[in-house]
Structure formats: C-alpha cells, structure tokens
C-alpha cells in the first residue's frame, strides 16, 4: 500500500486537478462526438432525361428532409437531431452517364469522400451494376427508387438494401384494379421502354393478366428505346390493332411525349390506358392529361397517399419549399432516408452511441420496419433487404377549379396482396397465381 506524503491541502489540490482533468476529458470526448457527422452520398439524375421527373424532385425532397433532421424538426420517432445526435452531411452525385461511370462514382464516394452510406439510383440498369460493387467493398448502400425485381431475386447481398417495392407490385396492382372495378379486358396491348424496367414491367403485367383474365388476348407489344421522344409509329400500331386496355410503364419525358402525341390522335378514347408509374407527369401536364386514365405511382404517393400526421407534415414541408406537391420520386427518397435514420440510430444505440460500422448498419436495417408518409415500409423480401409497401391505383380527373389533375376511384392494395411472399420470386409467384396473397380488395 502506498501512502502519499503530500500535505492535506496539496492532496485536496491534486484531487481537484484530477477532477478537472477528468471533466476536461469527458468534455473533449463529448465535443468529438458532437462534432462527428454522418456523411451520406445521394446519387440521382441531376441532368439528362430522368432529371426533371425523378432525379431533381428526389434530391429536393432529400434537402428539405435533411434540413429538418439537422434541426430536429421532424415528427417522432424521427425527431432526434441528425442521426442520433450526429449532424448529417450530404454529397450529391449525378446519376447520368451510364452504369460503368456509376460504379466508378460509387467507389469514389466510399474511398475519397469517405461517406458512411450511399442512397441512390433511379435506373434499374445502374442498380444492377452498383449493388455488386458496394457488396465487394463491404459498404452500406440503399437503392431508393429503381424497380427491377431481379436485384434481390438473382443475388444475395449483405450490405445492399432497397427501401421501396419492386416493379412487380405496380403491374399486379394494375391488373387487380381492372378486376376489382370490373373493367372489360378481353384484350390488351403494351408499350414499354426497351430496357430492364420496361421488359420486367411488361412481363409482370402480362403474367398477372394471364391469371386474373385468363381469356384476355395479348396484342401489340411495343418496345421503343428509352428517350425515343417520337411515338407516332407506335401509336399507329396500337390503333391498328385496338385492345380493350393498353398497358405502359413509360415514365418521365417519354411518358409526357407519348401522352401529348397519343391524346390528339384519340388513343385514349379507343382504349383504356393503364400507366404503372404515371403520377409524376400530372403536375406538369395539367389539363393536357386525359381524364379516366388508370394509373399508379409505384406506391401510395402524391394524391393517392394515405391520410396520416407524418404524411401531412411531409406534404406541407415539400409543398411550401417547392410550390408543388410531392410525387413518387421525393416520396421514395424520403422513405429511404427515414429508414436509414432509424437504422443508424438503432445501430448507434447498440454500439454505445458511436457511429456504426457498415456491418452494424446493415444488421439494424435488415428485416426492419418503419412508418413513412406513404405507409408502413417492411424489409420483408430478399432476406430482409427488399421492402414491400402498400400501393394504390386510381383514375385521373382534371379539376378545373383547383387547376390540377386529381385522382378518383382509388383502390388501395395492402403490401401482402401485391408483393410476393419471402420464399418466392415475383415471376414464379405471378405464374403460380399469387399464392399467399392476403387482404386483397
């Protein structure tokens, strides 16, 4: 046992010094933690054909939400400042340029920008390319928008997640809407873009029709290239062999051009047009959008979003900032960010309040569930890496008083009705006649 020879007063002084030192150390540690930031790379189309409809509205959505996060102004349970006290820092990257460029950009985000997570990608082609790259680097990646079901059906990932339903939901819901509303569908034509999204969409819709309307005959199967712009020939082909319904997963400028060209030629009067992802063109087209078009938004978004306090808050936040209501792209961006926030905070709590590693983040995200403005998001497929969510389908109706296109005759489809169960891929689920589908209207 050692004994101090120092006088009593000196010992008191030493104790005080120790206390001061300890306090300083605690303060310093707290200070480091307070200054620590969580850096997120946001990748979306900031230029090119997908910028106007998807990329820029989504990034705008991210900006207002992140601002609210950093102020701690979001409603509970999202009301902690930043991510669990860590302020958020964002790097925005343009998705234009093709899949090869995106893989390089992703590596730059992780290696040079040192981001903690990447959230991005509208294009199905880009998603298919970047997911294996993130997995190889063992870095955390959220795919927030792209629709092809193949990402988690053809692969198994540890670090990659998609926080929105895949495209099978949209096409199954469209076919189910026809059934629910008893719409004549003895024949159907299709026009979809000739790349992963369009090809998957037409396959899922044709498959769903073969089960719900076994006698329906498939007619035209048009596959214009992405960004075609001119659809006169395709419209002629669709009018030459008219069908009861015409399905399309066109989006963005392609969809707008198709509507502007097909409307005056009377296509919308000769066939019931179904648009699987059409809501985002409504604010821009206004009265140029024909009435009675059946459309989805790839989720219960925009005018089809459910009534909730969270949705009201989000709708006001976005509308006040940009003077237009949010459509599908900002909704999906926000549901991805909300999921990331909860996962990060859960992982931090399990990590003693420290910034989580990609592995801890992935563990927190896997099989998680959270409330979004569009309803409950459940990471139920792909081993807990692929989300399912409720969706809604309705009909367009221009409201001259409000000077905007409204949606009427809305039918809501629970997630479990229009998404495959965890043990089946979308294609086989549709082929088998939707086994396990629950609570369908």
């Amino acid at each position, binding site marked *: 046992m050692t004994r101090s020879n120092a006088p009593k007063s000196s010992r008191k002084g030493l104790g005080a010094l120790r206390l001061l030192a300890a306090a300083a150390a605690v303060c310093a540690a707290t200070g480091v933690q307070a200054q620590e930031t969580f850096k997120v790379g946001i990748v979306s189309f900031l230029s090119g054909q997908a910028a106007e409809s998807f990329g820029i509205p989504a990034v705008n959505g991210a900006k207002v939400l992140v601002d609210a996060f950093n102020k701690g102004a979001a409603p509970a349970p999202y009301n902690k400042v930043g991510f669990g006290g860590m302020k958020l820092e964002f790097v925005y990257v343009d998705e234009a340029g093709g899949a090869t460029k995106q893989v390089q950009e992703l590596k730059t985000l992780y290696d040079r920008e040192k981001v903690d997570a990447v959230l991005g990608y509208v294009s199905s082609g880009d998603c298919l390319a970047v997911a294996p790259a993130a997995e190889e680097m063992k870095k955390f990646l959220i795919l927030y928008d792209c629709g092809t079901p193949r990402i988690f059906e053809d692969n198994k990932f540890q670090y990659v997640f998609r926080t929105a339903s895949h495209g099978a939901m949209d096409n199954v819901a469209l076919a189910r809407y026809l059934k629910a509303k008893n719409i004549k569908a003895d024949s159907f034509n299709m026009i979809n873009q000739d790349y992963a999204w369009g090809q998957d969409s037409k396959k899922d819709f044709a498959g769903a029709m073969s089960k719900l309307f076994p006698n329906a005959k498939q007619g035209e199967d048009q596959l214009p290239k992405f960004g075609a712009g001119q659809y*006169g020939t395709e419209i002629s082909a669709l009018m030459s062999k008219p069908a009861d319904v015409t399905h399309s997963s066109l989006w963005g400028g392609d969809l707008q051009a198709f509507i502007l060209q097909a409307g005056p030629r009377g296509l919308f009067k000769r066939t019931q047009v179904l648009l699987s992802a059409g809501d985002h063109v409504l604010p821009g087209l206004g009265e140029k959008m024909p009435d009675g078009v059946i459309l989805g938004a790839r989720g219960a978004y925009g005018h089809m979003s459910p009534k909730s306090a969270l949705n009201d808050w989000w709708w006001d936040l976005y509308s006040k900032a940009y003077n237009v209501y949010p459509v599908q792209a900002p909704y999906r961006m926000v549901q991805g960010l909300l999921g990331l926030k909860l996962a990060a905070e859960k992982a931090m709590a399990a990590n003693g309040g420290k910034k989580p590693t990609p592995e801890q983040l992935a563990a927190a995200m896997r099989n998680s569930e959270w409330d979004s403005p569009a309803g409950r998001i459940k990471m139920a497929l792909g081993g807990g890496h692929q989300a399912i969510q409720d969706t809604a389908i309705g009909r367009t109706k221009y409201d001259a008083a409000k000077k905007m296109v409204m949606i009427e005759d809305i039918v809501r489809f629970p997630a479990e009705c229009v998404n495959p169960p965890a043990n089946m891929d979308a294609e086989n689920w549709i082929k088998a006649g939707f086994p396990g589908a629950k609570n369908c209207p």
Partner: protein
Amino acid sequence: MAELVTILIDGLTYASWLFIVALGLTLVFGVLKILNIAHGSFYALGAYGAATMVAWFASMQFAPWLSLVAMLLAAVVIAAIVAPLTERGLLRFFYGRDEVLLVLTTNALFLIMEDLTKLIWGANPYFVSEPYALFGNVDVGVQSYVGYDFMLVGLAVTVGLAVWYGLNRTRQGKIVLAVIHSPEVAASMGVNVSRVYMVAFSIGIFLAALGGAFTAPMISVQPGVSVGVIILSFAVVIIGGLGSIEGAAIGALIVGMARSVAVHTAPVAELFAIYLVMAVVLMFRPEGLFQRIQARKI
C-alpha cells in the same frame, strides 16, 4: 393494304423530322469537315427557344397560327446569335487540326450546352402543345393523324429544296461548293473562306434549331432532349454519305421506313432494323450512298 399505307405514312413523317435535323449535320460536315456532336444541343436550344417564344406570343394574345412564326423566329434567333459565337469563338481555333480533336471539342460543347440550357431554363418541363392542334386531324382508314405531322413533311421538303437550290443554283451556293472542293484554291480566288464557314455553320445550326423548334409542340421540352436525335441523325448521314443533301434525304427515308416496318411487324427489332440497314449500306458503299470517292490531295 391499310397496314402498308400506315407504314408508309409513319415512315414518311418520321423521316421528315429526322431529315430537317440531319440536313444541318451533313451541311456542317460538308463545308467545315466537323462531325458536330453538339448538333443535338442546338436542336434542344431550338426546342427551348420555341417554348419561350410561343409562350411570349401567347401572353401577347397573338393569333394562334402566329405560334408557327414564333417557332421559326426562335430558330432564326438561335442561329443568328449562338452559331457565329460558337464558330468564331471556339471552332475556328481548331481548323486544320486532327479531326478527332474537333470531335472532342464538339463533345465538350455538347456537355457544356446541356448544363447551360438547364441553367437558363431550369429542369422543369415546358409544354407548348398549342401549335400541334393548329392543323386538325386527318383520318386515314382506322388511323387518325394529327395534321401537324403532315405539315412537318411539307416543311422538310421545303427546307430540303431551299438548301439544294441555294447550293446549286445561286452564286453564293457556288462559292460554298468551291470552298467544299478546295478552301485553299477558293481563298486564292478571293473568297472569304472564314465568312463562308461562319454562314454555312449558322445555316446548319438553324436547321438543327428549326428541327427542335417544330418538335417542341409534340414533346415535353426538358433536359436530355438533345441526346436521342443526334444518334439517329448520325445514322442518317452515314447511310446517305457525309456532306450530301440528297444522301440525307434518302438516308432519312431509309431510316424512317426501316423503323416503321419494324415497329409494325417486329417491334423488338426497332433499333436493330435501323442499324442493320446502315451496316448493309456500309458493306457495299463504305462512303455512304451519295458520297463521291474523293482523290487524295498530295
């Protein structure tokens, strides 16, 4: 028979749109020997300019048919301001250098202009569909065509004839042909070659902008409209022969018809059909259908 008529009409209307844009591309190459990657950007400028001008005419409550004048005016303004600036301010410094350098320069210009249009007009779409309804509808069998599409055919024929006449039947045109044949000899005969370059480039850009302006009513004018058209225009001028007006016309017709046949009979082969035709033409005529084999200068 009805389907054949539909295929022909669709092919012709598509070819007309393509010809107006490709004509400018081939003219610029013929005179300046520039493979102008930025041609699509001038097409986009024409579309944006038309959107602005038509909206302004509408706000002034001019008669609806004057929107056609507004679109023409937009193309003229863009050609008169942007083309000389681009040619005198940038391209002329690269004349006589490796052609690859010019391709890279125009590619850089394409990227810059893509961002510039976004900076000026923003990312939101512009809709100017009013002129599209000016000519009513024309019913052919089960089809109902928009009269505006046939107006575009007329515009393409007019523009093609005007450029052909200007080059082959006027004094200025003969000067341009002399410059195409040999800029050095033309200069030694007192021709202001720089001026010819600037005027020819401006006419080429006018045609690109005109194509964009008259396409604007049929599309949503937004970032990215410049991309698709330039690839098809290159296919047209390669089939027809770089620098040939007749070649651009025939090339546009071949592309339009090949695409129309594919869309109506085998939609999955739409793009394949265009490039198959191009490959077949290049197999037998590597210089394109209307390009004369040129003797190498020593």
